[in-house]
């Protein structure tokens, strides 16, 4: 990802900052400046909201391919996480044996390196998920 875009999105990526529509209460992540349900009634009124980082595995896949930048992590788990606030987040589940991941598994967000632009480029940080303690 290019540096300017990552920089613009850093607050939501670092701290799970989304937005809530004050008209209907729907929470959006990534943040939206207009609520698609309420349209112009929500313009200029969207409120920032920080997600708790808690969630459950809604769906997942185990990646075995040699994707660039993930060679040292494979096989790795990519999942859709259902949050109690509403939005579904896509992210990697780490610190777990892939075969132990299951739908409905409670997880929470952690702060990790997401990608790095070669050996000399910028390091991109953001959220991944780990299983809650049993």
């Amino acid at each position, binding site marked *: 990802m290019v540096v300017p875009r990552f920089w613009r999105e850093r607050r939501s990526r670092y701290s799970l900052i989304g937005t809530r529509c004050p008209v209907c209460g729907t929470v959006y992540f990534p943040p939206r400046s207009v609520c698609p349900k309420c349209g112009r009634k929500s313009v200029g009124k969207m409120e920032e909201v920080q997600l708790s980082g808690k969630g459950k595995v809604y769906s997942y896949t185990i990646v075995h391919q040699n994707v660039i930048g993930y060679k040292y*992590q494979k096989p790795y788990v990519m999942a859709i996480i259902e949050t109690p606030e509403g939005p579904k987040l896509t992210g990697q589940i780490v*610190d777990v044996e892939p075969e132990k991941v299951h739908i409905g598994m409670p997880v929470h967000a952690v*702060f*990790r*390196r997401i990608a790095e632009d070669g050996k000399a480029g910028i390091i991109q*940080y953001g959220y991944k998920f780990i299983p809650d*303690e049993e």
Partner: protein
Amino acid sequence: MVGIVTYGSYIPIYRIKTAEIARMWGDKPEHPEKGLGLFAKSVPAYDEDAATIAVEALRNALRRKNIPGDKIGAIFVGSESHPYAVKPTASLIAEVLGAYRAHAADLEFACKAGTAAMQNVYAMVKAGMIDYGVAIGTDTSQGQPGDALDYSASAGGTAYIIGKDEVIAEINHTVSFVTDTPDFWRREGQRYPSHGGRFTGEPAYFKHIMSTAKMLMEEAGTKPEDYDYVVFHQPNGKFPYRVGKRLGFKEEQIKPGLISPYIGNTYSGGTPTGLSTVLDIAKPEDRIIAVSFGSGAGSDAFDITVTDEMENFNRDAAPKVWDMINRAKYIDYATYLKFRRMIVEVD
């Protein structure tokens, strides 16, 4: 009253047993256990570094007591493994906190950069410049493969928020001692550090810790028996007992704050995490002395008293150090090399 308002630690889940490292390098498996008092060391996952460890430790501190970012006036991050050579770790922490009106800086002083951070924040709070400040010691240190440091260099960190309201542990006194001592160094551009072999013990670790501890107790008017706990920098599992006994401390004062046998030497995270382990179990009025050591060489010492506020403090809102020591996944040496990016590939 100036002191610790909240604290939190983070230790990566992965461990390598020192016997596995010994197997790899042809040493007897019991050598690191008997000689160094080290059984295992923590290993950062492939996607962890000193900055991610700092953020996780800080979030554990904020789980126990949330201090809003706009009240935090200083952020000091001590590490010898900052992810960038140029680009501060402290600015990333500021962004994570939403603390923009803050004095932020990275510190580096081998294994004592974390306590140096604590001292800086303490001074700013005491001077009335800020209400709250964040001090973090964090590292993902590396030894040359096959070197003695390969048994100990590990990963972890601890974050302290220091302020003057609702203090759970008052910092009564702090002093430092420093000399130019070439016991351990790493030149710019070199991947692994070098050290002065046996020179690392007596003129470095022992001299600096003993001088600083004696200076602190003299200024505070205390004796070893006045303390419930003593925390020393812990490069292995033996030095803290040895230096402690020479200073007149007993094993039961040293043991609760000694975690290097199970996670190794977390460098800048070492003394701060030892102190965090003690704070996990300390009661009001307990008195603690903590003395760090950083090669090159210097020590920072703190005389701390736990306050009644500890009773109202939500320690259980974040994992304790022993919870994190116990949640371990063991890996072999090859996986360790993979996680630490020590495999050389031909382009």
